[in-house]
């Protein structure tokens, strides 16, 4: 009885894929499914604040497992596509997982898992009743969906899903600065989403399709008359995703809002949201519209340099730890845009590696800021101090994170910077390479300031020189031993990718090749003869 209605006697083979689908191909949609079902279950158990974190953690663990399985399968079999409802592309909505999408989706889900663990300590009963866990899991539906979809309008839909979930997360405590930050965040993001939608409408007008593989195949056949329209679409998309990614000069929403929510929410936002924008830039400009990218390369380079330098100068000017880290997120986005500006294989690999590194390190830094707040009672560097004496182990972890975010060896930030500088130099963009190095140097100063003020000196402002240990003396615990686990997982990954970069070299090279040479991507959707 199952299957299309047999009584209708219609030949479906022209419109539908009737071949059986291997159960393994379901891994393409599994991350989104798990997040949606998990979000629904968490929503139903919203009032049960004891059971809900456990349920959410089960779903987040499943999500990590599904993403891991997906990545293994993609590396094994190449790009995997599933078209919803069995309709043939480009009519059905395609989910297409390549190395780039699967890698980022996996790293994002690991970060979400860590945020779930961290939130079990820092989000109180009220925050849970207001829906921390449902929003976190549904946010992952949006993030994974954006990384895995092969349809440009569907990408817009997942952007909306993650945006709505992030609105819920940012106002979790409902106090005045949060609402203030949420308004700035919301308005800017809605404008960006609208530009995205306008660009997508124009894409549909020009190509008559929204499937990314279809567009990538058709764009080379387009005659010159449409190149002006294409460029318009390119600029619209660039502006839209630059807003999402927090690139200069449309990044002022980020420092205005990222320090307001619960610290674990800031950690998730800093790790994931801007990187989804960077991913969309890479996906659109390298896979679909390489000619627009070539044309706009100089513009992207200027934006990248400005983003890096203004970001890191902002970080140097702040005394609030969370604001410092917020500006460092922006500086990192500049480095990834530098990769996009160069556009060579090495540069895109570097950008992908940097995105993975940035997801891990920014989340870990915000989590560390939360611990500093628990230990020192403040987010302000002037009021912090003596944390090294209070807990040397935690100080060591922070130093690792500080080295990593500055791009110093032997941690994960070093390798992508090497790749990006190398790529920029061989492309003849000396200024871009210089800006990457300069921003790395200034980042070192910015986190060095945090280190010296919060950790190294004996106590808060006014403590006499020469004080080595905080007045209370002895080791202070970091608040709750459960906080060690999420920070530990992220730090371990940062150290591992620093010491064993081959894994990420391989993944990011395959990811970059997959978008620069779209043949494999197109074939995965349309079969061997598109």
């Amino acid at each position, binding site marked *: *009885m*199952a*299957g*299309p*209605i047999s009584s209708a006697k219609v030949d479906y083979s022209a419109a539908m*894929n009737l071949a*059986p*689908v*291997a*159960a393994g*191909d*379901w891994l393409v*949609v599994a991350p989104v*499914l798990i997040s*949606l*079902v998990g*979000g*629904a*279950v*968490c*929503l*139903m158990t*919203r*009032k049960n604040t004891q059971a809900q974190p456990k349920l959410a953690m089960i779903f987040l663990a499943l999500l990590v497992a599904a993403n891991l399985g997906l990545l293994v399968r993609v590396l094994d079999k190449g790009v995997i596509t*599933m*078209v*919803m*409802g*069995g309709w043939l592309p480009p009519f*059905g909505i395609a*989910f297409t997982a390549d190395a780039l999408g699967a890698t980022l989706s996996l790293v994002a889900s690991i970060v979400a898992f860590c945020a779930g663990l961290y939130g079990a300590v820092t989000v109180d009963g009220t925050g849970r009743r207001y829906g921390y866990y*449902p929003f976190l899991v549904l946010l992952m539906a949006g993030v994974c969906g954006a990384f895995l979809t092969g349809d440009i309008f569907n990408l817009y839909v997942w952007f909306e899903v993650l945006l709505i979930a992030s609105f819920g997360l940012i106002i979790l405590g409902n106090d005045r600065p949060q609402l203030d930050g949420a308004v700035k965040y919301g308005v800017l993001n809605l404008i960006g989403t609208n530009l995205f939608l306008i660009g997508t409408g124009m894409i549909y007008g020009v190509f008559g399709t929204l499937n990314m593989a279809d567009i990538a195949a058709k764009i080379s056949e387009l005659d010159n008359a449409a190149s002006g329209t294409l460029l318009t679409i390119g600029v619209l998309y660039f502006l839209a995703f630059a807003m999402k990614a927090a690139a200069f000069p449309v990044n002022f929403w980020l420092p205005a809002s990222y320090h307001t929510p619960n610290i674990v929410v800031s950690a998730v936002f800093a790790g994931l949201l801007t990187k989804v924008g960077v991913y969309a830039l890479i996906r659109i400009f390298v896979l679909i519209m390489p000619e627009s990218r070539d044309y706009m390369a100089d513009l992207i380079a200027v934006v990248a340099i400005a983003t890096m330098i203004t970001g890191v100068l902002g970080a140097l000017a702040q005394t609030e730890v969370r604001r410092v880290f917020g500006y460092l997120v922006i500086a990192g986005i500049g480095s990834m845009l530098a990769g996009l500006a160069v556009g060579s294989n090495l540069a895109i690999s570097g950008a992908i590696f940097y995105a993975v590194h940035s997801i891990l390190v920014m989340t870990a830094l915000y989590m560390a800021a939360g611990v500093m707040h628990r230990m020192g009672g403040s987010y302000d560097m002037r009021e912090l101090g003596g944390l090294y004496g209070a807990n040397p182990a935690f100080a060591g972890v922070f130093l690792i994170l500080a080295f990593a975010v500055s791009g110093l060896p032997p941690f994960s930030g070093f390798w992508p910077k090497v790749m990006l500088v190398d790529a920029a130099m061989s492309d003849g963009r000396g200024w871009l390479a210089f800006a990457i190095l300069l921003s790395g140097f200034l980042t070192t100063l910015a986190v060095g300031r945090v280190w010296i003020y919060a950790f190294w000196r004996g106590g808060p402002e006014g403590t006499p020189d020469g004080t080595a240990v905080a007045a209370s003396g002895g080791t202070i615990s970091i608040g709750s031993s459960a906080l060690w686990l999420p920070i530990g997982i992220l730090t371990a990954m940062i150290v591992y990718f620093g010491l064993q970069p081959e894994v990420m070299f391989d993944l990011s090279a395959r990811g970059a090749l997959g978008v620069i040479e779209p043949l494999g991507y197109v074939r995965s959707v349309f079969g061997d003869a598109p």
Partner: protein
Amino acid sequence: MRTLIFRTIAPYLSALMVLYSIFVLLRGHNEPGGGFIGGLIAASALAIFGIACGVAAVRRALKVHPMSLAGFGLFIGTLAGVYSLFTKQPFMTSQWWPVTIFDVEIKLSTPLIFDIGVYFVVVGAIASIALALEERESD
């Protein structure tokens, strides 16, 4: 708004509207209607009941929090698409089970289950917003 006439008529009106919303939901596959519009009608039924008899009465009548209804809708809506995993077809491929009751063929299907999911999501989400707004007004 709590006039005697309104309070007397509101329960009947709400019941009728919920009934009508289910009718709209079920006819929606081939004719105008469906889960979204049906959900809106049901949510307005709850809103009218709330205006007439107070939000507390609505919450008592609903038994569960509207947001849980929305979660339930999302849950069955997602699972409706998963069924095709067992028939080796892609996600969300529709499955049909036509049954004949009193010589009328009724096509039960996964799109119907999905539509019911949409119905619950809309009822839950809109009703919780409406009830929150009405609650604020009454105190």
